[in-house]
């Protein structure tokens, strides 16, 4: 079987999960809705949310022109929400990609080579696993400054250790299987074994792990932004809540405060449902509690 066929087979397994699990379908529907919102934001949003409004447009209640009202600088909240989905999704996805890359690399190398490599990598992993994530993110974000790239970096660099551990243990068990020994016997090098045999066998687990990392990344982004470490030049749901809280517009502006939170919650919920469904299938050994049973 060609390399492509191996990977395609694995992807087919994943698609199978979606077809059979109602949870995964619901999650997928939510995510697609938000993705459409992010991609077509300029067409969907009734106003440009980056244009500052006039004095008369400040903190308007919901009306026909502004379905969710306006914010403290006269911007349409619905338009803000729609545009903000871009940053929230982008940050969560790219940060997860970083975490996926680092986690897979460390997990595979650690599990495959063992010995000193394993020892060193696992010490580093333990360190990141044990340091409380949010304070670490806050400290790092404080140093490197407020921008989207930095937020992505900070979330990515703190989100990989769980993944590395899970993948490592999977690699440890794959390594013992006869076909690995057979490939070695016919003269395959380490690189070839990793690419041809190890990676395809952990691919679906990596995907499942990535999908449970995404909601955590979404929540981390919103929290960092809410605290005031977000990029002030771009709108995200966390930044909207930051400004709402900062300017003390809590009383009577229910729509302003509720809507970004609901968006964060729904998007994270969508990814959680899919991750949940996938992990049930691909990671039955792991007692993660949250993502087991039905």
């Amino acid at each position, binding site marked *: 079987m060609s390399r492509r066929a191996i990977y395609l087979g694995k992807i087919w397994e994943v698609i199978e999960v979606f077809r059979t699990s109602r949870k995964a379908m619901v999650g997928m529907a939510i995510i697609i809705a938000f993705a459409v919102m992010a991609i077509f934001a300029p067409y969907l949003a009734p106003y440009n949310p980056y244009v500052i409004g006039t004095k008369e447009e400040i903190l308007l209640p919901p009306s026909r022109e502004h379905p969710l009202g306006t914010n403290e600088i006269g911007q349409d909240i619905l338009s803000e929400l729609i545009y903000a989905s871009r940053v929230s999704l982008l940050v969560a996805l790219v940060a997860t990609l970083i975490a996926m890359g680092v986690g897979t690399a460390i997990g595979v190398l650690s599990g495959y080579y063992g010995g000193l490599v394993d020892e060193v990598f696992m010490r580093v992993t333990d360190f990141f696993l044990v340091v409380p994530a949010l304070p670490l993110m806050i400290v790092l974000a404080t140093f490197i400054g407020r921008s989207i790239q930095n937020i992505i970096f900070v979330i990515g660099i703190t989100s990989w250790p769980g993944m590395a551990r899970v993948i490592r243990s999977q690699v440890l068990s794959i390594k013992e299987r006869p076909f690995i020994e057979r490939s070695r016997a016919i003269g395959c090098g380490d690189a070839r074994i990793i690419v041809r045999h190890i990676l395809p066998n952990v691919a679906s687990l990596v995907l499942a792990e990535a999908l449970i990392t995404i909601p955590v990344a979404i929540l981390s982004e919103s929290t960092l932004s809410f605290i005031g470490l977000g990029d002030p030049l771009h709108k995200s749901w966390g930044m909207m809540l930051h400004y709402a809280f900062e300017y003390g517009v809590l009383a009577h502006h229910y729509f302003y405060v509720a809507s970004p939170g609901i968006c964060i919650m729904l998007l994270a919920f969508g990814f959680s449902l899919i991750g949940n469904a996938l992990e049930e299938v691909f990671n039955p050994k792991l007692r993660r*509690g949250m993502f087991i049973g039905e």
Partner: protein
Amino acid sequence: MREYILRRTVSLFLTIFSVVTFNFFLFRLMPIDPMHLFARDPRLGPVIRERLIKIFGLDKPVWVQYVLYLKELLRGNMGISFYYKKPVTKILVPRLFNTILLVGVGEVLSIILGVILGMISAVKRGSKIDIANIFFAILIWSAPGFWIGVMLMMAFMGILPTSGIVSPEIIHKDLWTYLWDVGRHMILPTLTLTLVYYTEYTLIMRSSLVEVLTEDYILTAKAKGLGTLGILLRHALKNASLPLVTLTAVNLGIIVAGDVEVEIVFSWPGLGLLIYESVIHRDYPMLQAAFLLVTISVVVANFLADILYAVLDPRVSYRVKRGLEV
């Protein structure tokens, strides 16, 4: 077993050491000159500046500073706050107490709520109640904690106090009014923390209980005529509580660490809010000390959870004895 604990203890100290080292070098790498932050007043002049640099040992090479840092840390000296101009520990300790009070109560409540809901769900697995319960738990888990706090704050504005630990005008009255007032201030943040934390306990309780309830000996107990409550109390709970106990032990670390988001929303003067304030004030010694404290408490809690797990689960000590577990 003893060897296992010994090995874990060694690795605990190694981790703490690496945390301390990381903490030192991270704050050395920061792009801003600490002297600039400590002595902000431009009128100080170069002479005083020189003297301050000498006093704080900033003229010495980094590794000497590192050794000094370790030495002073062991003596309980965590430096002087840039913002308060007082020893960091003086500010830190009362904050720590506030955090333990708030997060401790929140943690206990969420364990109680989580265990009860998880049990109901496991016993009635597959039913509408179970599905609704799980659905709601995952939904709440997906909501940012600070937002739950803000929503509760909006809902109870004017009815319950929404910020701080005590109303300023009541401080000087008698002890009972004081405690009553603190209790009232605690309601909303505690409620938020309970909502934020209970979901994890519910889902863990449910999954481990479901697993136990499908074992053969439960069927035997049922065949002998034992009711649901009897099965739960006599057979199932004890075996299902293991993951719960370890999760609780891990979360002990969080009790000390505090919850940054919830403390910010409710202006609760705990360790989490202190971390946030230190970020705003660029108070690096304070941030460094708070971060160290938080990290070490989580590390120690994890260590305790590991040991507890090994003690409680005979399978682990068996594996340890056979050299299967490192």
